[in-house]
């Protein structure tokens, strides 16, 4: 198991390195691009341009440029967007990270809980009205676009029902955890729910189809023949083997959401997270921020996949020896 983890960790680091090279090449070695002008910002003076060229080594060969870039990004951490205006990149990302993490982790807990509950309940209720009912609820969840659902939620909680039922809902935006747990959570409950609705539907459906498949397997019949309770058959045998599919799906979704795919939720609920930051920087063509965000996103996607690989190996003994 330890060797497996080590191997995976090395692979993850290599992937990160490859991504950083690729991202660097896309932005800095594309023919016709002048990264110095981009980094210096609009209407920058010749001196600033010169200074940027020197500090990023744009007159030197590409590998040196890459090394200098990574140094600015990770060691000196002084990468600045629009040098002449002087907004540093790293603090912006640092500010955005807790917002996105809070949003996505909270939503993930909710959707995993309801997804699993619905999937297992639907499997247990096969042959009755429970199963199709849960699956229809799942489809409805999947088909509601986050931006629309989010706006409807806002309409209800911020305006129509704000004076009565939803009076406890604070205005849109984010409150850090340090300002009190309830203050933090109350700002996020509606975004969490909204984001979780989509994924709970998907997970419930995937889990149900996996489990129904497992229920037809011989090991489930064997388990019944052993005289254990139906509930134990359902959870310890059918669910346990179906969990593997859910976890690999979760790794992909979670990584992507942390990496900025939660953009729509962030916009609708006024959360200045990583998705929003990336989006804004793309609008301004703010090269250093884009670079920083992409590296950050890649880091989390790779980290999430690494963790999933570990969980996967814990769940499925067949994977450990590969």
């Amino acid at each position, binding site marked *: 198991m330890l060797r497996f983890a080590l191997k995976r960790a090395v692979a993850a680091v290599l992937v990160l390195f490859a991504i950083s090279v690729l991202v660097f090449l896309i932005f800095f070695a594309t023919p016709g691009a002048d990264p110095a002008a981009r980094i210096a910002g609009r209407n920058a003076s010749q001196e600033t341009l010169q200074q940027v060229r020197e500090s990023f080594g744009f007159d030197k060969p590409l590998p040196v440029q890459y090394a200098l870039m990574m140094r600015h990004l990770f060691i000196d951490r002084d990468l600045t967007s629009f040098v002449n205006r002087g907004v540093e990149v790293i603090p912006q990302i640092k500010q955005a990270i807790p917002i996105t993490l809070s949003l996505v982790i909270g939503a993930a807990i909710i959707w995993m809980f309801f997804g699993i509950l619905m999937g297992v309940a639907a499997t247990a209720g096969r042959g009755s009205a429970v199963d199709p009912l849960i699956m229809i609820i799942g489809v409805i969840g999947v088909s509601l676009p986050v931006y629309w659902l989010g706006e409807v939620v806002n309409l209800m909680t911020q305006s129509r029902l704000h004076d009565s039922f939803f009076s406890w809902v604070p205005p849109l935006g984010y409150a850090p955890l340090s300002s009190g747990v309830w203050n933090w959570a109350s700002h996020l409950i509606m975004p969490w729910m909204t984001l979780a609705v989509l994924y709970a539907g998907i997970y419930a459906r995937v889990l149900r189809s996996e489990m129904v498949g497992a229920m037809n397997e011989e*090991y489930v019949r064997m388990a*019944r*023949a052993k*005289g254990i309770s*139906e509930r134990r058959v359902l959870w310890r045998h059918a669910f346990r*083997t179906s969990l*593997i599919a859910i976890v690999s799906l979760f790794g992909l979704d979670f990584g992507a959401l942390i990496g900025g795919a939660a953009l729509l939720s962030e916009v609708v609920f006024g959360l200045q997270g990583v998705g929003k930051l990336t989006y804004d920087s793309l609008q301004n063509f703010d090269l250093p921020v884009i670079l920083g965000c992409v590296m950050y996103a890649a880091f989390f996607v790779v980290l999430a996949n690494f963790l999933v690989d570990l969980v996967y190996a814990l769940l499925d*003994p067949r994977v450990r020896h590969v």
Partner: protein
Amino acid sequence: MSEPLLDVRDLRVSFRTRNGKVAAVDGISFQVGVGEVVGLVGESGSGKSVSMLSVLRLIDNPNCVVEGEVLFKGRDLLTMSDAEMRKIRGDEIAMIFQDPMTALTPVYTAGWHISEQIRAHEKVSKQAAMDRAVQLLDSVGIPNAKERVNSYPHEFSGGMRQRVVIAMALSCNPSLLIADEPTTALDVTIQAQILELLQNLQSDFGSSIVIITHDMGVVSQVSDRVMVMYGGRLVESGPRRDVMRDPLHPYTWGLMGSIPPTDGTRTPRLAAIPGAPISPSDPDRDRCLFSPRCRFASDACRPTPLLAMHTPGHMDACILPLAERPERRREALTPVEVTL
């Protein structure tokens, strides 16, 4: 005969389908005595697995209807509550399935599987259950049981996995073991080992065994009594020696004729049973169901011939006069010219 361990009376298993009710098992009655090994033989779809699965009430198809009586130690399994049934499953009646590759949940160790079963029926500590698992694995001939108890199913070969399944089935000393084609998925040398193992265990533990198979060789090797099923009905039943030496029913002749003889002159062609097994949805049921494929069929084959006892314990359901049978059997073994 003293009180039988299992007494099945007029068991009927049918499935509701779009085209009406389909009878997979069509009124079979049989008994299994204490310590007896019974071989249940038949083609695919003859209802042999379904009948034994319904004994344990393991068919979870909501369209399945089971009728009749299944008396186990005098109690009717079919009218029992689910909770009572669970106490019997795995504890008093254990089952082994055909494919050892898929019979174990892939994410748990051999020891986990065995101790799960033990702890479902007895109040023992995890450690005690694990210790018993080691003993059981050892007794079914798994080398190095102490280490193998922590192995996962994918780390065992097919034959070893079937041994694990058998160890699990025996973990609560069941009085009846139902083995559904336990050797079909294994290669021939392993088959022999598993059969020998079952026999040894039978003599050690004293359990009765019902072994379901389509392989006459398996039956002749292990069973005390043979029951032949066709189209969901019993067509012949008797002590192994009688059935093997002196089979009565034309269907049994066909089954035996399709075993290549290992001595004497080599037959140029094995006698095959013409036609295809009767479909359970065939509406014309008031007749001998084998008659469409039988060369000795006549108008006398309807209505359904009843099982009739010929020699003590040996019965069959066929209208052919007993005196004619040896000759008819020789006739049956000469292959028919197949015109295509």
